[in-house]
């Protein structure tokens, strides 16, 4: 199709519209007719509005707490009021009041600060809600809460409750005017009742919250928790005193692991440290013997590596001796014994050897010192092990008591922390309760005019229908032509089929041939 797509001339466009004109007209008529009928027969409704305002009782103390500023109070506040207003209990109560006027608040009763739902209504409410869930749902659709600045306005002090109530036919008998008046009156009443029920519910929720906070504070559980902590600490310290300072870490390990395994662990630890010390001792003694042997035979220089590496002086001396010996062995084949350099070198070698011997002796003394230290350490460890095995039996149960007291102390501290948190919360709640956000009714429900219910704007709807009808019928015409593959003109035939058009025969009516 792409290769037969000619550029659209104006004539082409007119042809498209003209050839499908009937379809376009029908489509247009259907659209406009449907919209007009819908607008004319749409249900009309009445609107009633109540204006409410939220104010804190007094300017709150900014030092009272970090999050009780007035701004935040009111902000979060408005968003939660929506939820309360749309809850089933409030709407159910309002509908029940509408149905049974004996529960309805008096003329100015809804404005008083302490309005409460009558007892009879409260009793009947749960059943009513269960029986009329769909009515409540429809009421939710008709209710709206308008805040200046849009539904997500963060900070607003005023808000409007709007009820749109349809001008239904089931308002009982009577003529049309009477029915309309009744519908308008119902709309207003419903708005009032919803606000009254909402205020009652709001106060009820506030009271519940402060009640809970007050009860908590009365219990004074914080002081109690503190006392418990002190007690646990004292017990622990007493126990620690009886154990003795050096056994304290031992006791904590034993306590954690239990008597047998803890003891066994400690014993193995001590024994392993003893054996390490003994090993080191053996090394040192061997080293000492090597150095002694070396001293007895100064000509044979076989200094153990450890000594050489631990003392830089010796290492250097060894290097020097080696250098000198090499030098001598280099000189002797060439020169005689009287050669000056040879003699000086030999004397230097002798001096170096004497220095080495002195150093080795010093090292020997150092080794002796280390050996003595290690022996002392070993003795100390063995003494400890002996003492421990002696006291093992006595330590066991004491150690367990100790560790248990430690755990008790930790638990008491945790409990105290929790109590402290709860305490802060309730202090805050109580301060909020003393400084509540009051909701008051600014205007009572507006009275809708029964003769002028709200209706859809006819001229606007028809205008929109006309425009969209026009657009849609054009869309139809061009779409239908786009997908129409029949041959409509000589040009199309020649372009698509490649054969010359020999004649173009206009339509001449039905194919009836009579010969009379």
């Amino acid at each position, binding site marked *: 199709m792409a290769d037969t797509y000619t550029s659209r001339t104006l004539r082409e466009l*007119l042809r498209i519209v003209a*050839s499908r004109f009937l379809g376009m007209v029908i489509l247009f008529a259907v659209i406009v007719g449907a919209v007009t009928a819908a607008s004319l027969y749409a249900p009309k409704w009445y609107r009633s509005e109540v204006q409410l305002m939220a104010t804190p009782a007094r300017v709150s103390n900014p030092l009272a707490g970090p999050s009780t500023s007035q701004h935040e109070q009111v902000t979060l506040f408005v968003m939660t009021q929506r939820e309360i207003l749309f809850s089933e209990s409030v709407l159910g109560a309002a509908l029940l009041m509408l149905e049974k006027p004996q529960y309805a608040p008096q003329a100015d009763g809804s404005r008083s600060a302490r309005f409460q739902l009558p007892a009879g209504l409260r009793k009947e409410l749960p059943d009513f809600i269960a029986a009329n869930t769909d009515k409540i749902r429809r009421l939710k659709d008709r209710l709206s809460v308008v805040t200046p600045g849009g539904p997500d306005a963060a900070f607003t002090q005023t808000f409007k409750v709007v009820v749109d109530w349809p001008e239904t036919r089931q308002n009982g008998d009577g003529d049309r005017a009477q029915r309309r008046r009744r519908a308008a009156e119902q709309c207003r009443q419903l708005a009032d009742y919803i606000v009254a029920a909402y205020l009652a519910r709001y106060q009820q929720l506030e009271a519940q919250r402060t009640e809970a906070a007050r009860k908590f504070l009365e219990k004074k559980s914080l002081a109690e928790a503190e006392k418990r902590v002190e007690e646990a600490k004292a017990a622990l310290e007493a126990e620690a005193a009886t154990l003795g300072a050096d056994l304290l870490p031992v006791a904590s390990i034993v306590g954690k692991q239990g008597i047998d395994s803890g003891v066994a662990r400690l014993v193995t630890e001590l024994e392993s440290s003893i054996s390490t010390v003994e090993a080191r001792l053996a090394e040192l003694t061997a080293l000492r013997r090597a150095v002694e042997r070396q001293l007895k035979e100064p000509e044979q220089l076989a200094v153990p590596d450890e000594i050489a590496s631990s003392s830089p002086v010796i290492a250097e001396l060894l290097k020097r001796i080696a250098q000198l010996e090499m030098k001598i062995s280099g000189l002797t084949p060439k020169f005689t014994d009287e050669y000056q350099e040879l003699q000086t070198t030999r004397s230097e070698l002798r001096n170096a050897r004497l220095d080495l011997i002195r150093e080795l002796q010093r090292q020997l003394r150092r080794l002796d010192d280390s050996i003595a230290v290690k022996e002392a350490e070993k003795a100390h460890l063995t003494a400890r092990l002996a003492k421990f095995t002696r006291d093992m039996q006595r330590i066991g149960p004491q150690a367990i008591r100790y560790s248990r007291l430690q755990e008790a102390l930790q638990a008491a501290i945790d409990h105290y922390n929790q109590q402290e948190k709860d305490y802060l919360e309730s202090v805050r709640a109580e301060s909020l309760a003393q400084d509540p956000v009051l909701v008051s009714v600014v205007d009572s429900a507006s009275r809708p005019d029964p003769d002028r219910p709200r209706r859809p704007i006819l001229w606007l709807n028809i205008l929109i229908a006309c425009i969209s009808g026009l657009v849609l019928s054009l869309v139809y015409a061009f779409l239908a032509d786009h997908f129409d*593959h*029949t*041959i409509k003109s000589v040009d199309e035939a020649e372009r698509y089929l490649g054969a010359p*058009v020999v004649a173009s025969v206009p339509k*001449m009516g039905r194919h009836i041939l*009579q*010969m009379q």
Partner: protein
Amino acid sequence: MSDLEDMFEPNEPISAAAAPSNDPSDDVPVLTLPAGSRRAPRLSGRASEMFHGMWASIFYSGRTTGKTVLLTSAARREGVSTIACGLALTDTDVEGGPRVALVDFNLRNPAIHRMLGLREGPGLVEALADGLSPAEAAQKINRNLDVFTVGAIGSRSLEVLRSDAVEKFFAQLDELYDQVLVDSAAANHYPDAQVLAGVLKEVVLVVHSDLTPREAVAQAKKRIEAGGGRVVGLVLNMRTFPIPNFLYRIV
């Protein structure tokens, strides 16, 4: 938009020598005149002009090389038989006009005898299968036009299409007449047109303007060319002009 009946106006009766009907009790449509006299159909003025133009552009424009032209269409009911009749009636009642033969080769839905008020009588099938001579099978309409109606097809359509008989028949017609018009069935539905295209070689394709999709016409053209024929021209039938005439000059 005059009716098609205006195209064919009944004229003065002529006493034409027609081959007698084989069976006098045949239900011959619309003939209530005494035997021997028949009204010759004629084209009305407007239609006559149009068909004159069509005739000229088919035969006098150098598109055709031979005398015979096959008329067919892509689908059924596109008006081929009407066009064939109209074309045949052009220019045939005058002195010195070409001698024209109209052959109704539409074995599936023959309509020419109905349109022109002829009897079904011995016709094409008899000429091809039974060996009847063309002079005997033809029916004379007016001075220059001979019509071969389809005859009694029965179940002999395949037998009729056997190519040697067809070739022989059209060779005979070629000698006897100046132009031969052959009407045949739809090319996309029946094989007749494809077979005849191989024999007759020159095909005019009739297209119903707002009804037949172009792909169907392209397929018919392909079939004709596969059969060995050549589409010398298209006739766009049943044209409608939704835009009023004066706009054609402005827009």
